[in-house]
């Protein structure tokens, strides 16, 4: 086993020399410029940087929602840059939970059903699905809102449902792109407390983009992205 490989064993996320370019109307924009990143398992990291610096782009690559122009990306042991779209989709269902700034819940489903949704991708009985979704909602403190539809919930509650949905599959890695961006201070604090708890008690690796220095303080590591590289 080479030194390099053994190093990535303890890494939830390992990024080497990743370049990401967007081409629009003949113009090529290099957003990530030979970026390297190692996120150890069980760490809680905040990613900061000016608007347009490529934070979302980096998260999308980690989540396998997008592919790098070049470079290696290993997340939860999988080499994403070598996998097909379909493979990545299946992988994502089992290994990554994503929380967006806009909560993206399905309005026709109750809180409980929204949380059950990712479990439809796995073989299990409906009773088991329901039980796991209930546990996830308990973790985020919403056991009393299971039958509520998203329109009946506050923004903070919606985001907590989204977090329950992100963790219900028990993924190793949780990714948040400005998860508190739309929330007031109190709701934001609750979400951040939840992240801390998921990190500490359940050992989830969390990487979260934020513009809010207070939010970033909750993380164990703060990284800054500027001009396509991490400072």
């Amino acid at each position, binding site marked *: 086993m080479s030194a390099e490989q053994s190093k990535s064993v303890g890494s939830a996320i390992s990024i080497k020399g990743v370049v990401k370019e967007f081409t629009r109307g003949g113009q090529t924009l290099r957003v990530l410029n030979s970026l390297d990143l190692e996120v150890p398992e069980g760490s809680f990291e905040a990613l900061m940087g000016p608007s347009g610096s490529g934070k*979302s782009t980096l998260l*999308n690559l980690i*989540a396998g*929602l*997008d592919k790098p122009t070049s470079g290696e990306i290993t997340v939860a042991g999988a080499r994403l840059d070598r996998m097909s*779209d*379909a493979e990545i*989709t*299946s992988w*994502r*269902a*089992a290994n990554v939970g*994503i929380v*967006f*700034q*806009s909560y*993206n819940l*399905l*309005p*026709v*489903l109750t809180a409980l*059903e929204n949380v*059950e*949704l*990712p479990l*439809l*991708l796995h073989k299990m009985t*409906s009773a088991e*699905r329901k039980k796991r979704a209930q546990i996830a909602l308990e973790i985020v403190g919403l056991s009393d809102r299971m039958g509520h539809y998203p329109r009946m919930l506050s923004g903070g509650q919606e985001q907590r449902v989204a977090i329950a*949905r992100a963790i219900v599959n028990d993924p190793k890695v949780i990714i948040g*792109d*400005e998860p508190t961006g739309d929330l007031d201070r109190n709701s934001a604090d609750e979400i951040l407390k939840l992240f801390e708890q998921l990190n500490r008690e359940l050992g989830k690796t969390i990487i979260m983009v934020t513009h809010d220095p207070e939010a970033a303080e909750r993380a164990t590591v703060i990284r800054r992205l500027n001009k396509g590289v991490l400072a």
Partner: protein
Amino acid sequence: MNLPGLAVRNIYRNPVRLALTVAGVAVALLTFVTLRTAVMSWDEAKNYTLKDRLVTRHKITFVMDLPKNYADDVRDLKGADGKPLIRASTFLNWFGGKDPAHENDFFATIAADHNTFLTVYDEIKIPDDQLKAFNETRNGAVVGDLLATKFNWKVGDNITLESPIYGLRENGEPWTFKIVGLYSTTSKAVDRQTFYFRWDYMNDGVRAEAKDRVGWIASRSVDAAHAAEVTAAIDKRFDDADTQTLTQDEASFFQGFMGMVSSVLAIMSYLSYIILAILGLILANAISMSVRERTNEYASMKAIGFHAKTLASLILTESTLIALAGAIPGVILSYLIVDVALGDFLEYNLANFFPVFRVKIWTYAEAVAAATVIGLFAGIVPALTVARLNVVENLRRVA
């Protein structure tokens, strides 16, 4: 909760759109079923015509009549082997009668030779005692049971009719008839609203130059399989006479008539498919509007880990279910309007054209199957759009 369940919830999301789409599908299917049934029923009418019943008329036109003795000549026609070709024969005249009390209601009035009429038209049934009265009453008439019901006529009623063709009787008196019987029929193709009366009574009353003339001769050939040869033999019999004839068997006559309307049928058939195309557009429009509104939901489902194929089938399920949701009321509506209401009306009033105007089970099946398949196709474009959806770009737009 499961994926089909999610599709169903999405369907109910916009009740107004759903109601309009379902109504659109239902009305389109009703139109489809009506057109198909008309085409099939018309097509089927020929099954009720008889190959061995021959109608002989003036060669030039229906309006001109024939000498009465032609009827005897037809009846007595023999083949080359000396055997009779005709087993029954009768003669009739179109009277064109009208009841002044029912000025706007059309019904056929036909003078028929009472001695032979029922031997040729054996689908017409008259009770024995009424038939006896018909034979004994010179101005007797037998009318269709439906016509009697419609005009509230009873056996024993005296009816006066006007005829634009024959005017008044020779002696200046009106044409007065006594209803002595009502006929029913064993064949769906026989009109139940005809007024038949005795040919001899008509012949008594017409002016001298119109006496002993018949409108057409109806006969039955001994051998239905050789009807074509018999019709030729009849016309050949009068080849050298002053008045030539044209004889056709009932089935050919009907087909000749159908030839004229066949282009109408072709258009109706074509229209029924146009309707299905419209149905497809209604569905495609509804489903793509709905899917477009939910683009970011599909994007986030992809982000969760749902495959393109799964989302595409979710959309196809939805569009097929909407089509089916319209097909069910469409079939019920078709049954009530086409089968029950229209069917009864046409079978009573236009029995010669639509002896059986009923929706076939097959047509319902065709309608439901067409709606299902079209529903599936209507979902294809939105399904492909969602399958190809770029998650990153769509979620960027929301955030």
